């Protein structure tokens, strides 16, 4: 079978076919690259939410007229930081945070090291996504909660976050996919994974089949994340999917 495949590709004028097929046939290597593509962005998404979720909440509740107004100066500082970080192109940001990676992880190369720039780039993005979700919240419901004697903390944890859950899940899906894309880009500065494979081996060594296979796997990964995210969001939304809970009360 692989003989026929090699002949087919060679008939299209593709160079170094046997070498490429051999590389792609090594399931272990491929699987390891997929793993590297997934775990760094997954960790970065987690860390980005640890920073971005509270930040996004503060951006909403801290403004004038919010649930828990905070000093105007603090709010403008936070907004400026978010905007600054968001306006630096990711490739440049990666280079800029090299000292930070070194400080935290002791190294600035390798897949693990990309978690640091990915987190720094994603946290402000996540903050804005969370902010957008929470702003969809019906003001009237918050007012009702206040009228019932909710504290700001209770409004955040018992009203805003649960009520915005479907939208927050959509945001997280969006964030995960964007960070996955950033992670592939991190291959350019020494990260691993499918991005690095496509860039270094596929493009750099002119192994075009390897490049396409790497890209196709990335596309599939994005599709999987999007499908799971959308399905989860819809399933959890009691406005469009009011399944009765079967739990006995």
């Amino acid at each position, binding site marked *: 079978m692989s003989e026929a495949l090699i002949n087919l590709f060679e008939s299209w004028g593709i160079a170094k076919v046997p070498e490429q097929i051999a590389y792609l046939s090594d399931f272990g290597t491929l699987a390891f690259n997929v793993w590297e593509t997934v775990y760094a962005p997954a960790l970065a998404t987690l860390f980005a939410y640890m920073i971005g979720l509270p930040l996004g909440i503060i951006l909403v509740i801290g403004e004038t007229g919010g649930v828990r107004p905070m000093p105007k100066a603090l709010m403008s500082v936070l907004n400026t930081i978010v905007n600054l970080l968001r306006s630096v192109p990711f490739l440049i940001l990666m280079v800029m945070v090299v000292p930070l990676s070194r400080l935290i992880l002791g190294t600035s190369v390798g897949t693990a090291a990309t978690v640091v720039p990915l987190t720094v780039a994603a946290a402000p993005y996540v903050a804005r996504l969370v902010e957008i979700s929470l702003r969809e919240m019906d003001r*009237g419901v918050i*007012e*009702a909660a206040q*009228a*019932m*004697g909710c504290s700001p903390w209770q409004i955040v944890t018992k009203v805003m976050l649960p009520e915005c859950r479907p939208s927050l899940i959509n945001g997280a899906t969006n964030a995960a996919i964007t960070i996955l894309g950033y992670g592939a880009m991190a291959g350019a500065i020494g990260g691993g994974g499918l991005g690095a494979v496509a860039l270094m081996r596929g493009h750099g060594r002119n192994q075009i089949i390897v490049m396409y296979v790497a890209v196709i796997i990335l596309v599939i990964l994005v599709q999987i994340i999007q499908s799971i995210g959308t399905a989860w969001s819809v399933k959890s939304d009691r406005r469009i999917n*009011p399944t*009765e809970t079967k739990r006995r009360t």
Partner: protein
Amino acid sequence: MSESIIQIQHLSKTFGDGTEAVHALEDINLDIRQGEIFGIIGLSGAGKSTLVRCMNLLERPTAGTVTVDGQNMTALSERELRAARRKITMIFQGFNLLMQRTCLKNVCFPMEIGSVPAAQAQKRAKELLELVGLGDKAQAYPAQLSGGQKQRVAIARALATEPKVLLCDEATSALDPTTTISILNLLKDLNRQLGVTVVVITHQMSVIEEICSRVAILDGGSVVEMGDVQEIFSNPTTDAARRLVYPGGVVPAQFPASTRVIRISFNGGTAYDPLIASLAIDCGVKVNILGADTRNVGGKAIGTMLLGLPEDSNEAAKALNYIQAQKNITVEEVPDYHE
């Protein structure tokens, strides 16, 4: 007379400052009695919603005091205020239910906030849902309910903390006439059964007439008239009150001074009795409909009509007697206030 539950003294609320200041409320004085159903009526922009939000301090008054059940609300700290709000709950035009929670969990919510044990809260929530006639909807989500059902859940939720006062901010304005009547009847029942004081904010005169014992008329941020509903409705002395009381914004002053004007209210008699036509046929008297705001709610006539009587005093008396003899209709003569 029973003692007062809400006292508002010299309350003012100004939004913004300097030249852009908007005086939403100016020197409001109100005394709402325990156990009554008190109405606050006014047109859009009169300050009704601001006033009701000053009662539970969702809006902080610029000046004046609000005393609820002997407690000066304006003097409380944020923490004390949150506790006090359990005794003065609220329902809204937009229902404001938590859409991601079941009805039962919605009703449990205020008790959850107040650290009532979950089992006890659920038991009470079930009882409350029964009370508002939605015992079978405990596990349904608000998205599955009609507007009237949503408002019933909101009422059950508002009652969860055993409040002394229930504030209703345009609670029936988003509902159709039939549902409005059923919600108003529910509020009336709850007032009677539980003794909860109800404050109704509305722009619909029919709502006030249906359930309130006393009413304050708000216009331009001030209370222009206050008193028993019957008195105010039969003899509105200010322009704002007349605009609200007379159907269709009719201004009786525009009719010749010789015209006797009567206001009749349909209080739920059958909608299929043609009153004006029978008047013409049975008595041979022709009356002039100056304005009307009547609705057919479940086959019952509800609303008001303003009639101009014939100039001939005999005919006028005949018509008046005829109308007075009808069931479920009240008649008042509109006093002459031609200058």
